[in-house]
């Protein structure tokens, strides 16, 4: 049997090491090898965004990244969004705004929206919609998700003020 590859990477701030086959995607490695099941599979071809993670400060669909490509990278998953016991403003605002119904797309949306707010603290509705067009939601029609992102931006502005 061909040998697995050893990958050393940083996930949610923790140095992590795992073994994987080159054909295993980063999504598979997160979920099946490392037990980080918060990142979801919806389509496995980059079209739904449920598998969104941050890879070196870019949001990417982890189904289209190989596990071996994570070598030396900084990865943030949904499990790394809350600060210990404290929810991120986005997580709070998603709950307050009922921006989730079945919740399967929610981790992907939160990671993607966090990346937006990190570089654009005051986005317009159009900017939010464009940024999140790679994330599909079938339950909400996006309305409350957009409101939740706007409210999280407001929370963060208040916190900084």
């Amino acid at each position, binding site marked *: 049997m061909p040998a697995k590859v050893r990958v050393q990477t940083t996930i949610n701030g923790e140095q992590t090491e795992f073994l994987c086959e080159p054909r295993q995607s980063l999504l598979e490695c997160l979920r099946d090898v490392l037990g980080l099941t918060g990142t979801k599979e919806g389509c496995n071809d980059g079209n739904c965004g449920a598998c969104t993670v941050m890879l070196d400060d870019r949001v990417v669909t982890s189904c289209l990244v190989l596990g071996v490509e994570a070598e030396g990278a900084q990865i943030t998953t949904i499990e790394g969004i809350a600060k210990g016991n404290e929810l991120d403003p986005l997580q709070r605002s998603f709950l307050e705004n009922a921006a989730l119904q*079945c919740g399967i797309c929610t981790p992907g949306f939160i990671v993607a929206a966090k990346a937006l707010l990190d570089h654009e603290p005051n986005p317009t509705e159009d900017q939010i919609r464009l940024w999140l067009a790679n994330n599909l939601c079938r339950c909400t029609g996006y309305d409350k998700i957009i409101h939740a992102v706007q409210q999280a931006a407001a929370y963060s502005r208040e916190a900084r003020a």
Partner: protein
Amino acid sequence: MSTEQYTVVGTRPVRHDGVDKVTGRAQYGADLQMAGLLYGYVLRSPHAHARIKRIDTSKAEKFPGVKAVITAADFPPTPERMVDLGEGDTPLSYARGNVLAGAKALYRGHAIAAVAATSIHVAEEAASLIEVDYEVLPAVLTAPEAMQDGASILHEDLRTKEFGEQTGRVSNVSEHFRHTMGDIAAGFAEAEVIIEREFNTATVHQGYIEPHNATALWNNDGRVLVWCSTQGAFVVRDVTACLLDVPVSHVRVTPMEIGGGFGGKIPVYIEPVAALLSKKTGKPVKIVMSRKDVFEGTGPTPGSYMKVKVGARKDGRITAAQAYLAYEAGAYPGAMVGPGAMCVFAAYDIANVVIDGFDVVVNKPSTAAYRAPGATNAAFATETVLDEIAEKLGIDPLDLRLKNAAKEGTRRADGPKYRRVGCVEVLEAMKNHPHYSAPLGGPNRGRGVAIGFWFNVGLPSSCNISVTADGTVNLVEGSTDIGGTRTSIAMQAAEVLGIPAEAVRPTVVDTDSIGFTAVTGGSRTTFATGWAAYEAAQDVVRQMKERAAKLWETDAASVTLERGVFRSGEKSMTFAELASKIDQTGGPVVGRGAVNPKGAGGSFSGNIVDVEVDPETGKVTILRFTAVQDVGKAIHPSYVEGQMQGGSAQGIGWALNEEYYMSRDGSMMNSSLLDYRMPTALDLPMIDTVIVEVPNPGHPFGVRGVGEANIVPPPGAIANAIYRAAGVRMRRLPMNPPAIMEAIWSQRD
């Protein structure tokens, strides 16, 4: 009832499972991990119609890492009989056939065999080594095609039932029924304007983001343990037990969190397959469908061919209505044409009606319910015909509908007479909404309206509530939570008990742990399981009153409960205070509720939509969208709004871009989320919602249900708006840019 002041009902608490869902901790079916887990992969037919002459699994079995391979031959030998799996009688061979094909492959994507191996990649690779000899047969892909004389026949044992009687005819028509009311000929004779049109709608999929998943362990004690994302754990239990020919008590189903269903996760596909693989390997087996398998191997909703004819007097009163509805069932009978026929004219009070419905098998995946199944197709037809009539008579489209609106006492052609319903209230809310009178300037823009109906169901639900000494309660129920229902159920219990919603801890449990509970579907969960919770809470209140009476040495009949405070004479105690004393007054307090309510109330809904059509490309932009719905009582308004927005978004996708694009030989060409085009955040505006509350007299809080009626009007409303924007009447779904361009060109010629 909606004028009552509630403390909890009607508020917007954070949902109980929310923290786990925004942190990624919530466990959906595919997240399950277990020692010794094997991975299953299903081999599917590449042909839309073929006889299966031979399956050779030997090479696959020898592939390193493979632990078992199964086919339909691995079902226990059970004699053919009729089984009732919740949707009327069906032959066992049909039920098994869709899970693992028997003698024939009936659609591309039909499950043929399955492999269990140490990794999904190994299982997939091994499956490609399974050799299948197919004798390819001609395929039929639409209802009209399948209904023709001489059409290729799917089931040699299927005989047409007509008007309730078996005709003995071999055809692809499983059933033809007819509803009649009044005198249709007289009705049309009286009409001063008659519009008759033909419509076609393509197959569309529910499009839930989470693919189907199931893990099964055929345990050493003979019990089959299943974990899956399903809309009905008890359906999975009953169907799996039936197909595997084991007693129902041998199967336990644990519902995991579920990533969307919309009706598509009611049927059972992979649970029995995983169970058989587990039996053969002695290990737990997990199967997760790929997105391609979801499109090609689960149940989309029927494509359809319809004719609708409506006659009206010049004053706008409808005198007659006739519908011909031929719905594609897919490979096995059971198209939702019955509900389509119930809904096609359901919003209107018409004396003379004839509705013909046809359940037709075609070589496509066996269809499943999709949110108000059958109604959206029918409403697309009716609402555009009525729009033409309104235009011809010079009557405002909402006024035309108001003139004929269904009311309390209106009888439908399929039989039922309405109790109190909110059709008029919905129409008035639309008429009075600022959107309806807002100016819509600019070229290529138009506004359209449509309304729709869904009957909502009751069905059985169970619930237990036990009191904790600190004044909180545990609530246990069996309705999988797809959209926040554990909270709307908890809120109803909280209202009865007089405690905050946060003081109720709802849990969705497995089939061993709660009484029978029907599916999360049919807009029934907040209605029926909420009612079960209401009953369980009343039971708790009765017992608590007895405990208070014991403490106060008085009669239980003298104890009242109001806003969470028990009183008798001068004495009073809060729920929490009394809860701390239940140990010393007799022990645990456990309330139970089990209901099978008959008083479900139908929901009317309506849309106002503004569109802009690019006359050079045919592309439609939704400028503004308003959704109105009578929900009876909104227990949690945020989640009610969410249902309305979600159903609207699905209706918009159905109207504009979604379809199974089929090749001539019956392959779905676009079985990916790239080319099966569901709306993204950039394709929709904000969706304004108006919650109308005409209480359902058949429910303690007046709940009707909200999940489904909102997907019914969008295609009709959008078609009517496109007409005003571009001057073309669309009669085919989807109304995609090339179709609209063709219509514009045809009009110019």
